[in-house]
């Protein structure tokens, strides 16, 4: 893992990482990278606490989780509706209990609520898995310092500009700047 040969990306780009002790330097570094011609989609930030896009001046992240939650809620609602309005029609002879209607009013509300919520929460959970590609046990670019509160900025640059960027990052307070290693987490 310690061998320091630059990994050349298929596109000829090198993948680098800079580790910062705090938010301020990391935000400055991101501005600097942009000034040096690295676009936002060539960068990625890894942190041990949730860091909002606004703090680092990054474009906002797209997430499907709320949409998936809504979709799950709709599916759940139809599941509940089937249980209440569909199932009594499956029997050759409807089953009557007491003098309650075969398709009862208030219990419908209860069942629809529970199954809607179940659908919504299950799909929210599933949404995190889908959007984040969990579970993912392949080797990935990572530095363990992030779970100690450091902020790691990953970016891709051309091999020629590597020197220059490394120097700029160090000047902004990077604790280390190195070639991002793909490792088994």
């Amino acid at each position, binding site marked *: 893992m310690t061998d320091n040969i630059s990994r050349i990306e298929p596109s000829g780009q090198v993948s680098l990482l800079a580790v910062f002790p705090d938010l301020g330097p990391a935000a400055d570094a991101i501005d600097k990278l942009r000034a040096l011609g690295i676009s936002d989609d060539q960068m990625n930030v890894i942190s041990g606490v949730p860091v909002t896009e606004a703090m680092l001046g990054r474009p906002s992240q797209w997430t499907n989780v709320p949409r998936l939650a809504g979709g799950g809620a709709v599916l759940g609602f139809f599941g509940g509706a089937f249980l209440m309005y569909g199932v*009594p*029609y499956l029997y*050759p*002879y*409807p*089953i*009557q*209990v*007491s*003098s*309650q*209607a*075969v*398709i009862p009013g208030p219990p419908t509300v209860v069942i629809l609520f529970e199954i809607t919520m179940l659908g919504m929460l299950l799909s929210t959970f599933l949404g995190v898995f889908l959007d984040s590609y969990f579970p993912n046990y392949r080797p990935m670019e990572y530095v363990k310092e992030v779970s100690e509160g450091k902020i790691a900025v990953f970016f891709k640059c051309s091999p020629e500009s590597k020197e220059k960027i490394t120097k700029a990052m160090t000047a902004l307070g990077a604790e280390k700047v190195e070639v991002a290693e793909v490792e088994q987490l």
Partner: protein
Amino acid sequence: MIRPEEIKLSADQSGKWGMVIDQDICTGCQACVAACAMENNISFVGEADSGYGRSMHWIRIERFWEGEYPEIKMTPNQPMLCQQCGSATCEPVCPAFATVHSQAEQLNVQVYNRCVGTRYCANNCPYQVRSFNWRDYKRPEPLPNQFNPDVTVRRRGIMEKCTFCIQRIHKAQDKAKSEAREVLDGEFTTACAQACPADAIVFGRVDDPESLVSQLAHRNHGVKHLEELGTLPNVTYFKGG
């Protein structure tokens, strides 16, 4: 196929089978209790469990007294059995559809092999007439030789209750059908009514104004127990007539 919206709610109907019990002539001899146990293959619970409130009789004779000892006065015996409510509180609470309202017979039926034993129905029965199979009770000799082949034997964990001897109703209906006629009033009766030496129990069609049970039920001093709960019971009691 019948669609759910075609179901007529029983609350609009007067019931089909009914019973009249005259408490004034009941002697409390318990013949009905014995006859019911024989007819319906009711488990033999034994002394210990019966004493702890686990007797399984589908009909029981309730005895009360008024006043403090020694000045006590007995009140008429009160045979209590499933009232076959038209709007039964036990039915909707079963999560497994083990107790439902029979459209054909307008009875409250218990489906033994569907019961999972939540015992909610028994809690919700204001008459407390449901019995639960707390164990697999052993029948002492010679009781194992007299099972009624028309009635299911129940195992532990199942709720059961009076069926108005539905096996007898079906037998009479089948016989009448094969002879291309209606079931006649008094052609058959339940085991308890049959065994009653005082004829305190009368069973029949309450929707037929000509039947004996209808005519008795319309005598003005008949009461239905806990009628105020809206359960539409089908058993009428006479007391102090």
